Structures are given as C-alpha cells and as structure tokens.
C-alpha cells in the first residue's frame, strides 16, 4: 500500500492466510471496499487507514499484502 495519502482507494485483493484475512474483514477491510490512508507511521511504522468512518492501524508488512487501486 504505497498509495497516496488521502485519496479514495478501493481494495482489489488481499493475499494472506485465513487468520489475518478474517481479522482484516472484521475491520471491514474486504475486496471491493473503499478506504483511504490517513497517515504513515515514521521509521517504517504502520499505516493508518480510514474505513467506513473508523480508523485502523495496519502493520507495514501486512499492508503490503493488500492490493488497492486509486479511484478515478
């Protein structure tokens, strides 16, 4: 997820195992869902995304396994 901050994104695919996948879906992060990146933590820290009005921190390594597309 090296997508630009603040732009509306849509999740294309998620490449991880059942455990993390369902944990992400718990947060409402699923293919087809729209979200945007609020900020990236310093020193390779997690990214903070806004999905459906709630803020979720996702570790950098895990975030790399989420494919997104910039809308428009």
């Amino acid at each position, binding site marked *: 997820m090296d997508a630009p901050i603040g732009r509306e994104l849509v999740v294309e695919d998620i490449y991880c195992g059942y455990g993390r996948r369902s944990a992400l*879906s718990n947060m409402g992060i*699923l293919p087809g869902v729209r979200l945007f990146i609020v900020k990236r*933590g310093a020193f390779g820290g*997690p990214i903070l995304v806004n999905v459906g*009005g709630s803020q979720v*921190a*996702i*570790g950098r*390594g895990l975030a790399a396994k989420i494919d997104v597309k910039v809308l428009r």
Partner: protein
Amino acid sequence: MVIALVGQPNCGKSTLFNQVAGYKSISSNFPGTTVEFTKSKFWFRGQSTTIVDLPGSYSLSTTDMAELETMKYLLYEDVDIIINVMDSSLLSRSLELTIELTELQKPMIIAANMVDEAQKKGMSIDYPKLQKIMGVDVVPIMASKGKGITELFSRALESLHKKQIPNELLFSKDVENIIQTLADKLPETIYSQTKIPKRFLLLKLLEGNPIITQKVKELIPDIDKRVGSCRNKLKETHGRSSDIVVFSERHALSMNIFENVVKIGKPKRDIRESIDNIVMSRWLGYPILAVILYLFFVGIFYVGSSIEEPLSALFEQWTNLLIPLKQAHPLLYHLLSGVVQGIAGGITIVLPYLVPFLIGLSVLEDIGYLPRIAFLMDTFMHRIGLHGKAIIPFILGYGCNVPAIMALRILESPRDRFIAGTLATFVPCSARMTIIFAMVGYYMGAAAALSIYIINIVVIAIIGKVMSLMLPEITPGLILEIPRYQLPSWRSVMSKSWLRIKEFIVIAWPIIIIGSIILSTIQAIGLEDNINAMFSWLTSGILGLPSKVGVTLVFGIFRKELSMIMLSQALGTTHISSVLSHQQLFVFTMFVVFYMPCISTMGVLVRELNWRKTIFIFLLTTVVATVLAFLSRIVFYLT
C-alpha cells in the same frame, strides 16, 4: 434469566455492564482488554437476573481468543437473551456482528449505544426501520450517561417473553443456493448433536472456520470432502476464497441496511481529529509520548514521596512504643512489631506510589491513548520480533505483571505470547517501582532511579532481540482499531482504580502482614541465620550485600514489596542508608527488580503459557538479575 452482552470492542459494553452491576468489569478504551467475561447478578422487576459481559468481538470468526470465548459462550452456555450492544456511530461495521448473531436464531435485542456520537457525525438513524429489518427491538441508549438503560432491560424482558427471534437475513441468491446444497449433504441431526444452530453451522463450514470444522469432523469424518465441493463452487463463481465470499456477503448486507436506515447530514467538526493529527504525527508523536510518560512517572514519584515521608515518621514512633516490651515479653514484642511493620509497609511504602500510578493508568486507558502508543511503537516492536499490540502487556506490566500476562491474549500467535510474556515479567511492576523509588530514588535521587528504568528497557530490548532471533517466526502483523478519544469520567476512573487497589488491599496486604509476622517469628526463634547462611554465597559472595538480606529476598518471591518492607525489619532500622552504602542499595535494588517474578505472576504464567516456559522464565530472570547486580557492583567499585 441470563442476559449476555455481546458487542464489538469499544462499543460501551463494559460501561453498560458497570451501570447495571455496579463497577465490576474493567472497561477501557483499548480493543480486546476484556478477554475474560464478567458475571453479575441483580434484581430486575422482582426477577433474579444474571448479566454476562462477554469479551468484545468484531465477529464470531474466532481470529482471536476474545472471539473464541464469545462464540463458545453463546453456543454452549445457558443464555436466555442476547443484548447486542452496538456503537451507533459505527453502524455499518457493527451490523456485521449483528448479522452474524442473527444466524444463531436466539432471542435478541439491540442496544444502539453512543447515539450522541452518531449525531455528532451527522448521522440520523431511523431506529424503528432498523427494528423492522432486524425483527427484534432496537433501543437507543447512552451507556456512559446512564440514559435508556431501564428501558433497555424492560424491553429485553418483554422480548424474552415474546420469544423475539431475529429475522434470517438472506445473502444473494447464488450463495443461498450453495448454503442449501451444503445443508442437503448433512444429516438433519447434526445441529442438535453439535448444539450449533443450522445457519451458523453451515456458514462457518463454508468460511472454513477451523474450530467449527473440527467439531463437525468428530461426527462426520469426511466433512472436508462434503464442504470442499461447495467451497470450490463459491470460489469458482466469485473468483475469491469462500471465506472472503461469506464475509463480503455480510458486509454487503450491512451496507445495504445502513443505507436504508441512515441519512447522513453535515458532520460537526471534531476537534479530536486535529488532536490526533498532532499526537500521532511522524515527528511530534514520539516527543509527546516521552513527555507523557515522563510526567506520569515524575508525578507518581512526587506524590508518593511527599506522602511517604510524614507517614514513615509516624509509624517509626509507633514501633518505638513497643520497645519497652522487648525485655519482658520478647515473643509478643516480635509478633506485634511484625504486625506493625506489615501494616506500616502497606500504608507508608506501597499505597503512596500505587494509588497515583493506578489512577494515572486508568486515565490514560480511558482517554484511549494506549492504542496510539501501540501505533507509535509498532515499528520498534518489530525490531524485537513482535508487533505494536505487544506494547500493551508491557505498559500494564508497570502496574502489575499479572494483568500484563493476562493481556498476552490480545496477541495472535503462541510465539508472540511467549516472547512478550517473558519480556513482560522483566517490567518493574508497581511493587518493584516502590522499591526503586523508596530506596534508590529516595536515598540516591531521581536520576539514579531513572537509570534503573533505562537499564531495564535496554535489557528487555536485548533479550527480546535474542529471543526473536532464536524463534525466527514472522509475527502476524498489526491490525488494530484506533478508537476515538473519550473524556474519562471520574466515576469510571475512580471505580476502576479502586477495583485494582482493592486487589492490593485484600490479596497482597494480608500476605505482607503475614509475611512480616513470619519473619519476626523466624527472627525470634533464631532461624533467620540458617536461611541467610544458605544464600550467603549469593548475597554476600556475589552481590557484596550483608547476608542478612537473604531472608528478605526469599520473602520477595511471595510479594516483591516484602523484600523492602522486611529489609528494614531484617536490618533492624528504617534508616536503611545508615546500614547500606549507596553501592549496596543500588545492587540490592537491581537484583530485586530483575530476579524471578512473584508467585502470583508465576501462577498466571503457568496458566497462560505452560510449565516449561514458566521454568525457563524463572531461570532466565534469576540469571539476568545476578549478572546485572554483579555488574553494577563492579561498576560502582571502579568509579
């Protein structure tokens, strides 16, 4: 009547529970802190009612221990009615859990909490319409202000009498067809045999939930084959794995309901967002964290030491009153002075530091700062092979290692729990904090006390690095909701601190008093010397301390505070600096801070990890403590 409260983390479930049960559940602004459920009984409309606060769960997909606990309770325990608490301001996500709960087909009622937050966001929710769609009552409440709670419970009672079961909400047609195909492949008896409701069981099998699949396998050994074709069909038609298809169906349903019942207006500007921009910013985030933690500890030290001094003087006078007894009734004198020392130890040494610490922690917790710390620290925790959530056991560990070890449950993998658990036992808990403050801090100054904390953090980081190199499994990675800030309510902060202080008063304090009576008796009958001689190779040999401290270190295993409280008793004076040099004070404190966790901590370690890992931790801490204390002796000798 048994009522189960089910809801996502931070939806205000524990707050609601406390409103009814009178503050027995620890609520906090951190997802997943209530992993164990709390029960309470109360009388409602002349009926004895049991209310169970189940751990906050985003779903019932059993990705963490909280969700597993909740699912097990709902399936196998006796629950008459479910109260689904939801955060109205996060309605669409909350509905995903609600939809999963409808699959259980049990009597249910929805408590739409935080209606004020939803209004602030500009949402206007049509509750009657929501009620019609879900087929169960929806009651808007504000748990933190105690609004709507009586109404909620009386409607729950009504719903129970009417046996109000939620509507079965249907997915898209092709998915429903596959659910039906799977149902046809299973015997109708399976639902009663496993005690799992039909739709819930079918969906969990399609999701590939390992726990439910295992359960069914015990009765139908070839279940994988039967489900496999259905899962493949889903995969073929949707181009994604079957679990994602099921999750997406629930998500789509909840979005659909959301759009049906919510009108979005203009949100009020939320100052909390601007605060977050600063608190979590790349550059200011860390200095702010450092300042907050610094103020936190300095505040405790300041409050604690200004209370400790006058109190110690008072108790010193009282102990002196006993001296005339010494000649006439030596045994009585020893017993009485043991009692006085024990009581004095609790009041003068522990409480002055413990009370401000617990209040401060409750405030940080309720505001919601802890998940921000997890966000900021994630990258550093990765360097020791863990992720951001693992910072929480450490922070709680500064209060007491027991809740810290229990908080390991928020971590996903057993390896992470082992590493974080080992490291958390090194964190100086408030008992050890009182020793650091009251000995090194009091006699050698705040800088010396701070240096122990810094050495401690460095040592934890080194051990963490070594352990993560030895157990080179990749940590699952952080997924953590960062909840809104909440203004802490005095009632909640005070009652939460009180709950924790009460634990000290009823559990720890009696042990301290009994311990000091035993020590007095041992002194009176002259056994003390034998124990001290047994450990003199360590105490005077390696550490260069008077061998009299041996017995205090043994007692410290029961409660860490005992080491210090008994030190004055063992050395025969409260002016410890008149007997111990600065070097000895420092070496003693170093050893006490690092050596083996107290008995209660070892108890939870066995429960949460296992025997072997606990013995490993026991040995590791003792070796590390001895090495560090010896090194500091050398450093003092050289300087």
